[in-house]
């Protein structure tokens, strides 16, 4: 039962704000083709497929109908989770661990530029009885949460701004990123308020793109791939479903998920035992909140560390070398895909100008976005 699970191929289309030249099916096809080529497998040889989609983001009811064709998975065992790519990876991990499946492909994509009314779609995620009648949107709740987080932990708006500066700068080195830019803290602080203390530049903008990865059990992985990236630990957790009664100052869902994932991977001190992390930064303060929940920073210290370069690409412990969602773009259910792709590139030593030195193990963490309280953590390694 201690058979490891490895990533043996991964394909990514790259991420851009709009993609008028291709349909979402073509995006998936491109990513799938790259992943299968890397893995050296024809999709016919893959045992099972998992996609991560949400109906309302797709604009279809039962969006899982449109998964198999462009993935090469017609008449195969295919299923969907309405969850992040990283959770789908976790399900794939479980499937391999049952001993019934040797190879599995996981797909996540975003064609969010097709959505004309994204704010309204997101408003549909609010509880229809208690919250929706208040006519507030996800950004409003994020603003509340940011205020609570800053107040309880002592992190500051300026430190949140330094997350934006770092991540958008990192993205300049990432050919797959859509929002690389040089800013300084005052640009962020002076950007238009959305729901104070949240400002325009604190929020990740959206991107289109697709990621497909192929995982395999240990002996298959070793026979097919010279440098598999191993999934040492993976877990997802939800906190309280109710916006009105959950803890807003801390990311409990990540505390819980990290504890399990670290246990599986045998990690005692994440900063010593891993070399980098890709964490969810859909809003700037979320990166700080998640760093504290992951145990990478102590409570109240994530902002200080960020502002002082601890998490910079050339810092002690690089966080979001890809540029994160702030730099690459927010891709909804594919967010985990983007982050897993980055981690695989880092662990294979293929990250080019943004390569983290001596990367042997990395943490990937996602959050399902406001108003949810669901997140996931994975530990990946190359040894």
């Amino acid at each position, binding site marked *: 039962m201690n058979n490891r699970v490895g990533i043996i191929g991964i394909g990514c289309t790259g991420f851009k704000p709009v993609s008028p030249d291709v349909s979402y099916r073509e995006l998936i096809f491109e990513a799938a083709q790259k992943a299968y080529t890397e893995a050296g497998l024809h999709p016919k040889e893959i045992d099972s497929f998992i996609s991560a989609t949400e109906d309302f983001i797709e604009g279809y009811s039962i969006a899982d109908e449109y998964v198999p064709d462009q993935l090469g998975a*017609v008449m195969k*065992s295919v299923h969907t989770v309405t969850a992040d790519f990283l959770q789908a990876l976790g399900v794939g991990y479980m499937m391999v661990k049952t*001993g019934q499946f040797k190879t599995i492909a996981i797909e996540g994509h975003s064609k969010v530029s097709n959505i004309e009314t994204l704010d309204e779609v997101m408003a549909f995620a609010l509880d229809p009885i208690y919250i929706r009648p208040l006519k507030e949107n996800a950004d409003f709740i994020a603003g509340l949460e940011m205020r609570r987080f800053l107040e309880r932990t002592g992190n500051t708006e300026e430190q949140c701004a330094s997350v934006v500066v770092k991540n958008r700068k990192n993205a300049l080195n990432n050919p797959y990123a859509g929002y690389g830019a040089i800013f300084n803290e005052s640009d962020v602080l002076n950007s238009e308020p959305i729901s104070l203390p949240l400002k325009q530049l604190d929020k990740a903008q959206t991107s289109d793109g697709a990621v497909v990865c192929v995982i395999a059990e240990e002996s298959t992985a070793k026979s097919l791939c010279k440098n598999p990236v191993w999934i040492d630990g993976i877990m997802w957790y939800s906190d309280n479903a109710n916006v009105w009664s959950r803890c807003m100052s801390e990311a409990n869902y990540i505390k819980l998920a990290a504890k399990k994932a670290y246990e599986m991977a045998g990690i005692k001190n994440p900063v010593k035992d891993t070399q980098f992390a890709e964490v969810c930064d859909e809003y700037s303060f979320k990166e700080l909140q998640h760093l504290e929940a992951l145990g990478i920073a102590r409570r109240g210290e994530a902002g200080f560390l960020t502002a002082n370069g601890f998490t910079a690409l050339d810092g002690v412990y690089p966080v979001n070398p890809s540029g994160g969602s702030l730099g690459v773009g927010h891709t909804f259910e594919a967010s985990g895909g983007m982050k897993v792709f980055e981690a695989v590139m880092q662990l294979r030593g293929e990250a080019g100008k943004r390569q983290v030195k001596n990367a042997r193990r990395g943490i990937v963490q996602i959050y399902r976005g406001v108003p949810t309280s669901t997140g996931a953590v994975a530990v990946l390694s190359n040894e």
Partner: protein
Amino acid sequence: MGMRKVAIVGAGITKFVRRAQETGPELAYQASKMALDSCGLKLKDIEMITLGTAPDAFDGVHMKGEYLLGGAGGNKKPYIRNFVGGGTGVFAPIHGWMHVASGMCDLCMVVCEEKMSSCHPHPQGAFLTIFDHTTEQPIKPTLIWIFALEMKRYMETYGLKPEDVARVAVKNKKNALDHPSAQVAEELTVEDIVNSEVLADPVHRLDISPASDGAAAVILASEHVAKRLTDKPVWIEGVGWNLDTAYWATKDLYYPRYVEKAARMAYDMAGIKEPHKEIQVAEPYDPFDYKELHHMEGLLLCERGEAARLTAEGYTARDGNLPICPSGGALGVGNPIAATGLMKVIEIFLQLRGEAGKRQVPGNPRVGLAQAWGDLMQVGTVIVLKR
């Protein structure tokens, strides 16, 4: 490396009704509580949860899985929603099986909820957006319309008359009289069915299951935990699922080849060589009466084209050689989509434990299966249970 065995140890189902007063999370709560109570567990004992529910459009809630989280007991737990359209109800326990068989946990709760009535004026409206945006939506097809095509093709292939198909509805609606959750149980005649209003020829109103609200839940346990919890664990011996192309208009609809592939996957895992002999009770998905026949053939429970004749001969009755849908199925108990599939799994669970009460089939069955179907005539999900 032996696979970890997984058992169903507890189950709960709410009533299936047309318009529930409860919200979706409340329905999920009711079913979960019943399932936990049935095996003497508390929510704190449950390590992981997987939830099944069909389109978000019914409730008009984006990220419906997150919305149902609290009701399904997911607070502060690893919780995930699985989704294969109409096949979800039987896929959900398969998903739960993955959680336990992988060694990730010893106790997993599987919850399925559906509240179709929130969709006004009729839940069929939610299905208008399942079709391809370029090639199909402009001609405004409905589900009944495309299933009429499939039903016609199936009937024509084997020379069946409306009466041959209607017998399924008569049987299932009557079986449902003994089901405590049933919504549309009734004693009807074949004439009642074929004389009911035509919706899209050859589909009559009474050929179709109703729109329903309801929820169901089961508790899955690993071998050593199951044996501590109950003397009568029911083991998940085989699981299978399969997804065909979304371009349904390109295939011959007379036979559900994806159901056969899903069934073969499950039979292989369960070591079943001759399903028509080895399966002793089955709950194929019956949202339309012809679908039961279609699925019996796809599941290899009879020869192609034989299902209608066997039904007419009483072979599939509750006291027949191979009881099919002894619960009353979607046609009788109701069809809150994901919850229906799990209701079927629960029916097999109860039948194998000998706890189905008035619905109990004779002969102490040891092996049974449940199956669901969905998407654009595209997905088959199959689970084989053994005592």
